[in-house]
């Protein structure tokens, strides 16, 4: 573990412990504490990243890399947005006081995963994250939440098994879990261990054909939880580790390329499959879930090129995906609150009533589809370029074409929900309150500005990776 950043995982944990006691009398205190904890963490991170002294020195004063920093930033950003949204919208039933502690624990677990230096530590916190995720999905009352949660558990538990098998193999073969030591005596056992671990994280990340739990879980969970899960949790528990593995596989040279090529194949199939599946979804949250899966495909494909540009693209795409998917999920929650459903067939013409929701959705979906100059364009561009220059030209073309399909299904969604003639029964629909809109607007601003000032973002990551 990186000890100098340990506070980012410990403070949320302490907060999680404190909330049930402090909030027993007053629910407000729970919300305030959770928000304050996360906001403080985010401010702290932002200070470290954006402080001119640090920037000018090329971040040389830190011993960690930009990946860690940006992932921590992403975690805190999405977490604060979702928690803030949940607290002002009142959509999460927090009578049992379970939501905020769970989010706090999962933030702590994710931060620890990001800070972990070896796979065993990473594995432990991943398991902790899985348990909290299960509980979060199940927090929706009714059968859908329970069903989603159980599917999540059943379909991802083999991943834990595979990862622990891989780790055991590694320890058996070399006695060490450090990649630099492993690469000096790379053996078949190492290879097998790596293959198992990769497979395990691929299942966690929900690549095809291990994605089946995702739509049900996202649809079943409360919208704020869906945003949180789709925005960061699955990315950190699966994709982050995969990117780490790909960075490590680079060390092993030709020997391990079969692993990364399989991952690339899985990534491309995922993005194709999930994009097509998203086309005809009737439920907004389900469509977003499929979109989320297909973006996982982009990230996996980008990381699996093993090219620095591809890995950079993958990291950026994790960040961008966190921003735009959070916006879309939070907007779907706002719509659900004002219309009472997420079924797109029952919507239409909400643009007039909910202009902010509509516009933030447009920004987010354009970013997802990779419309310049929004941030999603740059990360997709990096991924496609890296696919092309590493020789996977077919994959690059497919990735390009399916970003158009992405635009197609999102435009369909936008049209069905916001454009067209307002339906009679929706005439009374109201725009979400300003505080509910705040997270989406903030994220949209981040999308726009990180797109426009992309060179600085790129510079930061390139310097510190």
């Amino acid at each position, binding site marked *: 573990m990186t000890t100098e950043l340990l506070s980012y995982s410990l403070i949320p944990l302490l907060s999680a412990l404190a909330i049930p006691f402090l909030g027993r009398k007053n629910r407000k205190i729970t919300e305030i504490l959770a928000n304050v904890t996360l906001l403080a963490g985010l401010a702290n991170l932002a200070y470290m990243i954006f402080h001119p002294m640090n920037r000018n020195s090329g971040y040389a004063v830190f011993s960690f890399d930009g990946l860690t920093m940006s992932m921590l930033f992403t975690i805190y950003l999405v977490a604060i947005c979702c928690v803030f949204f949940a607290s002002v919208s009142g959509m999460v039933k927090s009578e049992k006081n379970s939501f905020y502690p769970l989010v706090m624990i999962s933030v702590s677990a994710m931060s620890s995963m990001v800070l972990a230096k070896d796979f065993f530590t990473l594995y432990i916190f991943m398991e902790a994250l899985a348990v909290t995720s299960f509980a979060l999905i199940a927090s929706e009352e009714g059968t859908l939440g329970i069903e989603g949660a159980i*599917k999540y558990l059943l*379909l991802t538990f*083999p991943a834990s098994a595979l990862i622990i098998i891989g780790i055991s193999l590694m320890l058996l073969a070399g006695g060490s879990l450090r990649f630099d030591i492993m690469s000096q005596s790379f053996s078949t056992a190492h290879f097998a261990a790596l293959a198992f671990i990769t497979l395990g994280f691929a*299942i966690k990340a929900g690549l095809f*054909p*291990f994605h089946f739990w995702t739509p049900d879980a996202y649809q079943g969970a409360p919208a704020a939880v869906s945003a949180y899960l789709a925005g960061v949790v699955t990315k950190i528990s699966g994709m982050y580790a995969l990117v780490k593995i790909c960075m490590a596989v680079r060390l092993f040279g030709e020997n391990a390329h*079969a692993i990364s090529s399989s991952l690339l194949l899985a990534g491309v199939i995922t993005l194709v499959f999930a994009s*097509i599946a998203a086309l*005809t979804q009737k439920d907004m949250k389900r469509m977003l879930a499929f979109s989320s899966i297909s973006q996982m495909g982009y990230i996996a494909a980008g990381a699996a090129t093993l090219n620095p540009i591809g890995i950079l693209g993958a990291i950026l795409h994790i960040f961008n995906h966190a921003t735009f998917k959070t916006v879309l999920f939070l907007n779907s929650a706002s719509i659900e609150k004002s219309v009472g459903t997420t079924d797109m067939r029952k919507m239409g013409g909400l643009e007039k009533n909910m202009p902010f929701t509509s516009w933030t959705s447009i920004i987010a979906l354009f970013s997802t589809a990779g419309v310049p100059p929004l941030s999603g364009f740059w990360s997709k561009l990096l991924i496609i370029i890296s696919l092309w220059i590493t020789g996977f030209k077919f994959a690059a073309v497919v990735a390009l074409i399916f970003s158009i399909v992405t635009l197609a299904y999102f435009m369909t969604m936008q049209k069905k929900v916001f454009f067209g003639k307002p339906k009679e029964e929706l005439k009374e629909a109201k725009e979400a309150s300003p505080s509910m809109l705040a997270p989406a607007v903030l994220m949209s601003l981040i999308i726009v500005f990180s797109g426009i000032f992309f060179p600085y973002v790129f510079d930061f990551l390139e310097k510190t990776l």
Partner: protein
Amino acid sequence: MTTNLIAVGLPLFSALLLLLISEKTKYLKELLSIGVLLTSLIAAGMGLILSMKGVQTSLNLEWLGSLSSFSLKADMLSSFLLAAVSMFSAAVSLYSFSMEKKGSSKWFYFNVLMTQALAAGAVLSDSLITMLFFWEGMLVFLYTFIALSADSKETKNTALKAFLINAVTDLLMIIGVLITGALAGSFNMSAISGSKLTLTGWATAGYVLMLIGAVAKAGAFPFHTWIPDAALNSSASFMSYVPAAIDKLLGIYFLARISLYLYQLDSFMQIVLMTLGAVTIIVAVMMAFVQQDYKRLLSYHAVSQTGYMILGIGTLNPIGIAGGLFHMINHATYKSCLFMTAGSVERQTGTNDIEKLGGLFWKMPVTAVCFIIAAAAISGIAPLNGFFSKELVYKGSLETGYVWFFFAAEIGSFLTLASFLKLGHSVFFGKLKPEFENVKESPFSVLFPMVIFSAICLAFGFGAYWPIKNLIEPSLAGIGIVSSHELAGFHPDYLFAFSLAVILLALGNHILGFNLAGKRAHKASDHIHHAPILSEIYDMAEKKFFDLYELSMKFMNYFSRLLFKSDRFFDKITDNMPSGFFGYTAEKISAAHSGSYSLYMSLSLIGALIYLFLAGGLK
């Protein structure tokens, strides 16, 4: 050259000036235009006198770099044409002074002035590129002329038809000019004529393309179809100016230039030209014969007479060529006059339908006399100008040895006379209809140009010696054609007997038709119109079955529909098929997410196995 340039520059600037004058001013526009065009006529006349004295002037300006210079040259032929063009412009501007049915007077005179300027430029041009510049400019004003002459949908359609026919043929002509210029190494006509091109290989293509441009301008078959339509939908002023005079002058002038000046034609092209001429004569006169509208009947004759000019030039011997050129100026004179009488009758009675007209001779005596003179001239009755030019054409075609063309021309003369007997009889003779009891003669400004033109018909007839000797022969000499025969003069030989026979036949035919139709003059053509076989052909022609433009429009319709269909087809391929495929696949995938644990688990398991095989190096 400066005097000649007045005829080009002055109308051009006055046309622009005219646009500044308000529509509300009375007579200012008219008087300005008439003054300018009379000045142009005087200038052109002075230029012609200079040329007749043997002075050749030219103008050469740097233009378009090495491609071509802006060169004008007033040789005898050009000066002659310039004077003729200016004369018709001046006459029509005077004629239109009190004609109400000509559209907006401002735009009418604007068009006249622009046409005069551009036509004058075109006949003076020595460089083919310069000529194209003026020639194509006229195309624009042809369109605006027709389109602004009346405010109806048909007028716009006719304007478009005229524009499209001339635009397509002009495009072909441009290609022809480019080929010619490339082959000759120069676009300068005097330079090309130094070593004429012979019809081999690309040169044939170049000649034929320019030929199409020239005869289409002149309004020969099968490019004539807009003229009868314009007769119905535009004004008499326009008809007596552009299709009757300017287009004939320019088309035949250019035909003579390319056929005699730039190219050395062979006997095959001679047959082609003469056939084109003969077919034009016969087809158009057949149509003219059965028309029931004054101007429309005249318009078919305007086409038919073009055939004589092409036939004359196509003989390639000096007699025929002289006949063709002489016929050009004669035709312009009497056809302009005839259209003016049509306009005059229309102005006073309000109709041009010959069935409704009748017995106007004593009501409109000047118009009627002018009509009779011009009709006699067009029918080739001696000793009017049409007789002499036709005689030269007959002689020329007989000299080639192809007697058939001579007979075709004679049949044309027969039907021409027959149709004018019918026209004159039904308009000016017979019983006066009660509704025309109070009809008066047209005003002076309308009558004056008519009288002038019929005077020219008489003068060029009785004194045919003078124009042939002083205008036609020097013009031909200027482009290197000298006749060994005496061209001018009256020859009471077998051709004269032949023409008398034709006149008698036509008279007999008219009396026969008149009586067969129950003494109704306008039905005097019915015995031929409704003859077996001919009747069917006429029906088809009336339905525009032989109209190249309508045919190609129909084809274009099919073609565009085909394009539309193929567009739909490709649209299906690029649009419907992918979306259909994706839609179908997406439906199937959605259906596969049925929520069944066992399915999910087994798929995950299979996926994991495949992954492990692949990661293990399975190819």
